């Protein structure tokens, strides 16, 4: 049997290679064209199912499509955090890309490690913070303000007369994991926002322990709702679905983060803070192409600059939320947008 299989497989392999080597001329022609700017988009996870990654990819592709001979490659790093450093190093080692773009608070430290070996490689990192490395430019969102807007809205909901709201002054926050941004910016911002609505509101904070376990998130959410909360802010990636399921089962509300997704669960998703990730990727990559990216510096994008906001224009929001809540939230947004109110992002260095 082996005698028959070996030549058979060998023949298949050889024929396949021969067949495709006939395409060589075409490929050579392609390579002969010079490439003006090439970008590697490193996704610390996978794109499918993650709206923030999808936004970044869209923005980056748009920026690259506007230049002749621009090249972009989306590289998915997968969920094993232990592999990200090696994969990023391989990308830098290829010396094929003018710019590596990524998004995640963990990426600055990983990129700085790669930068030690490949100092010529430039990085543009969204949603992360690092100052003083001349190869790296970071652009993070003011998550304290974003958390504040979420907390204020949740506070307005729990004190409202909405159908799913009870008398208890309790709201929840479910996170995928504990990380510096969460503990030092989002959670304090969320609490401060809730207190701005009513100082007696208490926040029930729980951690899933990963970004995918929807069943665990569902049971955590159910327990928070059971204890009297009527709205939960969920920042747990794929596990968000579990929180939405719990909200649907118990007739309670869910507050989303980063991406407006009212249509996923009409009537259950009561509100959503948003970040302009697509715009950031597009505009900043255009800057990099033009040679104007400020490598070595770290920008913070806030509500006033239009990078962070609350999606209060969506028809489902307009339909489901009482007018007094809408008015109060708009008033708060106006204060941030005009600059009369701003919150400082804490400066800290995570690893």
């Amino acid at each position, binding site marked *: 049997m082996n005698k028959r299989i070996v030549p058979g497989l060998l023949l298949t392999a050889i024929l396949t290679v021969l067949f495709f080597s006939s395409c*060589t001329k075409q490929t050579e022609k392609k390579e002969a064209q010079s490439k003006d700017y090439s970008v590697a988009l490193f996704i610390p996870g996978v794109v499918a199912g993650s709206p923030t990654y999808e936004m970044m990819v869209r923005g980056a592709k748009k920026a690259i499509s506007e230049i002749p001979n621009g090249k972009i490659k989306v590289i998915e790093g997968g969920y094993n955090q232990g592999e990200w450093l090696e994969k990023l190093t391989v990308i830098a080692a290829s010396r094929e890309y003018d710019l590596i773009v990524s998004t995640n608070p963990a990426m600055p430290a990983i990129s700085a490690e790669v930068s030690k070996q490949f100092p010529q490689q430039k990085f543009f990192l969204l949603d992360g913070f690092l100052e003083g490395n001349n190869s790296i430019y970071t652009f993070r969102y003011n998550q304290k303000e974003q958390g504040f807007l979420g907390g204020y809205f949740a506070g307005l909901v729990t004190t409202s007369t909405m159908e799913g709201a009870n008398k208890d002054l309790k709201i929840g926050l479910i996170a995928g994991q504990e990380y510096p941004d969460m503990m030092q910016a989002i959670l304090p911002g969320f609490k401060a926002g809730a207190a701005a609505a009513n100082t007696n509101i208490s926040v029930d904070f729980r951690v899933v322990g990963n970004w995918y376990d929807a069943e665990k998130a569902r049971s955590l959410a159910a327990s928070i709702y059971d204890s009297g909360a009527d709205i939960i802010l969920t920042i747990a990636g794929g596990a968000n679905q579990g929180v939405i399921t719990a909200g649907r089962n118990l007739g309670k509300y869910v507050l989303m983060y980063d991406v407006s997704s009212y249509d996923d669960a009409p009537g259950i998703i009561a509100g959503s803070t948003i970040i302009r990730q697509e715009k950031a990727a597009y505009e900043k990559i255009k800057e990099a192409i033009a040679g104007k990216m400020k490598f070595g510096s770290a920008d913070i994008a806030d509500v006033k600059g239009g990078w962070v906001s609350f999606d209060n224009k969506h028809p489902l929001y307009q339909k489901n939320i009482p007018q007094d809540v809408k008015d109060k939230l708009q008033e708060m947004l106006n204060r941030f947008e005009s600059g009369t109110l701003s919150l400082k992002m804490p400066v800290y260095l995570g690893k």
Partner: protein
Amino acid sequence: MNSVSGSSIKTVAVTLVAAVSIPVILLALSSEDPLQSITFFFTGPFQSTYNLGNMLDNTAMLILTGLGMSIAFRAGTFNLGGEGQVYAGAITAVIISLNIGNTAGFTGIVIVLTAGLLTGALIAGISGFLKKQWNTDELISTFLLSGAIIHLTDFLIANPFRDRSSFLISTEKIPEKLFLYKLMGSSHLNISFFLSIAAVFLAYIFLFKSTTGYEIRLTGLNRKFVEYGGIPYKRHLVIPMLISGGMYGLAGSFSVLGNFHMGIKGFTAGLGWNGIAVTLIAGNNPIFIIPGALIFAYLEAGTEVAMIHSDLSFEFSNLIKAVIFFLITAKRFKLRRKVTLG
């Protein structure tokens, strides 16, 4: 002693040709620029010392895990708990390293490696003991125990040993004096490569040149015959499991001291299962574990480089690995069935 027979060479050759052909065909079918993808797949691992070094480091880990599986197979037992044993060996290495204090580098490294090895051995040994005492199916017990151990290790990394200042779900970094000596620039290749190869020869000598090894192999071939011959075969249900688990645990601690230098949630994932694939490529022969591991590491590195340089997606690279794994396993089971029927 037909340890390196003609038929086993042929089996390995068939498996290798199949393992290389499948990715080529899949890449050809999926990629917009198949020639580029295939070229990167084959030449990528050799394009830089970084890629080459990492591939060889992965080879070293696969040699150990393949060896772990192979020894269990030889004794006629199965150890499907490799994933948990590697992970447990790794977290033990991390915990000991973080608490080792001022112990000098070399002594410290020996302590950490021994602890990792013993952890893996202990976990697999439990399944061996259960088999010996109550004839509990080790196929099930190793697998179930591993499932529990993985969750426990996840918990240890995410809670008591978590570095709260890190954005990753990880422990703190281990002291630098415990890092294994690197052999090829900035790549992960380190002295564990030579130690792994040495382990293969030690395993070979143990299995084919020692009385216990002979008894273990005999137990694997025919348990009833061994019992009839007056050999205490029950002992050989535990010893191979101890060695097998020990190899997995050692691989885990090597990956901590040589590569990751910390515990990251899920960081050794895949090493245990891939060890089975390596053993099957090697036709269950310890000496062939080295080329088997090299081939598997080459295929892994090839898909990774192809993914970075061409339009191959993350899911598709995993699909290629899965197809290779499936093919190798199916082939092996077909042979096994033939042997049984024959």
